[in-house]
Structures are given as C-alpha cells and as structure tokens.
C-alpha cells in the first residue's frame, strides 16, 4: 500500500553509476526511482508510467539525447506537464537556454551534490504544474 504514495521519478542516463548515485540520493527520502539508459528507453517508460512526478535527464546519450527527449515530452501530448530537470556535464549557456525554452524546469551540472539534488527535486515535485 505504501508504494502508491511514493512520488515516482525516472532518471535517464547512459551511465549506470549516475543512475545509482541519483537513486541513492533520492530513494531514502521516499521517492520511487525508475531508470532508463537513453531517450528511446525513456520515452517507452514515460508513456507507460502516467503517474511520474519528475524526469531527471542527461543530455548526451546514445540513440536519443536529452534535449531531443525534452522536446518530445514537453512539447507535445498529455505528458507535457511532467517537470524535467537536466543533469549533465554540459554547462553551456546556449544549451541551458534552449532547454529552458523547451520547457525544462532546471539544469544541474555533474558531478552533483546529493543534498542539493534532493532539495531541487523536492522543490520541483511540490510545485503545482502551471496551466
């Protein structure tokens, strides 16, 4: 029964280490963590999990990168209200601006501080979606 009250988050990164780091940072605070290893894998899982509270997404990944995924999720369809935070080694201002315009809620440059990640995630998932 308890599982139904957990906020569900998907972490999308081709690095298993990063996925595990994110899970270790968030799961103890009551978040249920799903994992995907690229944008295509993520699209499949996002479609099948309508109760997702947040997407955390890398930028440079094989097959489909994070900015392309962001445009697909945030730009169209019934999934556009899911907040998306980018978690990447990229820090370029033009890429950050592009993500912001496409609907991302935040940008974190790796390596991340687990406490700061948790604080950002908690803030974003508790912010009501804008209509």
């Amino acid at each position: 029964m308890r599982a139904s009250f957990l906020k569900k988050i998907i972490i999308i990164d081709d690095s298993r280490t990063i996925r595990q780091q994110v899970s270790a940072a968030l799961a103890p605070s009551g978040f249920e963590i799903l994992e995907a290893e690229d944008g295509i894998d993520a699209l499949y899982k996002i479609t099948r999990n309508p109760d997702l509270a947040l997407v955390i997404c890398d930028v440079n990944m094989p097959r489909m990168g994070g900015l392309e995924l962001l445009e697909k999720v945030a730009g169209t369809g019934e999934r556009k209200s899911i907040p998306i935070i980018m978690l990447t080694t990229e820090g370029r201002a033009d890429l950050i601006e592009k993500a912001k315009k496409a609907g991302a809620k935040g940008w974190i440059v790796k390596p991340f501080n687990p406490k700061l990640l948790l604080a950002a995630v908690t803030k974003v998932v508790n912010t009501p979606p804008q209509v």
Partner: protein
Amino acid sequence: MQAIREIVVQSSLALFSCYGHPAQLVEPAEPQEEEERCDWVGVMAFSGPLFQGMISIGSPEALLKSLYPLASGSESQPIGKAEVHEWLSELTNQLLGRVANMLARRGVRLSLQTPAALPAEVLKLVLEESPPWEKFTFNLDSTSLIVRVNVRRIADRMEIAQALATPAVSDAAQSEGDVVLFE
C-alpha cells in the same frame, strides 16, 4: 595550443579533487612504465568549428575503484570489472565536460560524443593510428593516472589562437555542481 593544455590540467585536477583524491601533475611525464600499469582507458571524442579530437584517461583498476563514488557508505557490494569499466566512461565524460565548459567561457563551443572504456592494450593501437597525443601524468595516492588529449585543427592557427586568448566569461557556462531551477 598551450591554453588547451592548461585547461586539460586544471580540469583534471579539479575532477580528481572532487572525488576526494587531490592530484599532482608529474612533470615531465615519464614514458612507458605508466602505460603498462594502466588497466583501462576511457576515451571520448569532441568536435567544434575550430578543432576536434579525443581525450582519454588511463588508470589502474585499483585506482578507479578508489575513485568510484558509490564505494563508501551503504553500498556494500564489491565493485566488479563492469562497474569499473562503466565508471571510467563516466569519469571521462565528466573530464571532457569540464574542459568543454572552460572553453565555452572563452566562446569556444564543442560538441561532445558519448564516452567508452576500453582495455589499455586497445588504446595502444589507437595511439599508433591517430595524430600525436599530448600526455599528462598525475599522481593520485602514489599511483599514476594518465590523461591524454589529441587535437586536430580545423580552423587556421590564428583564428584558434585568438579564440583561446579571449578572456573567460563566467556566465557563459554553468559551473560543475551548480543547481539552477528556472522560473
């Protein structure tokens, strides 16, 4: 290309320090022996309008295990070869990310490919086939870790020199570890 050398060294020192292993650059790099002590190499390619190339990290397996971010704390499972292999890819990704962000602050944009990790003997074949690699040896906990970079010019020397001489603008790239929430 002295500016790129300095950026690679600064980025490497910052990255290893971030994972709790302050490093020292060993000068001059001592050839041969360190290569034999490398078990794995991470490699990653980059390209841009001014130049393109690759960066690599070569390290003994034991050192990679000590840098592994989940090695301490509640994760009690032993770190296997698969984890080391995967972690080196990500470490290479984070190193090149730092390099690219420092260059972005000077207005130089790079597109980054996805990283890969290979057994060290495979890198020897790559080194033989590609242009000269600049080599930097770092000492971490009395163990040598080797960073290499090879850069091939696309634009002319003058254009590259002018770009690299541009003063860094801090807000042209977000810093590592920073969290920015929009709105």
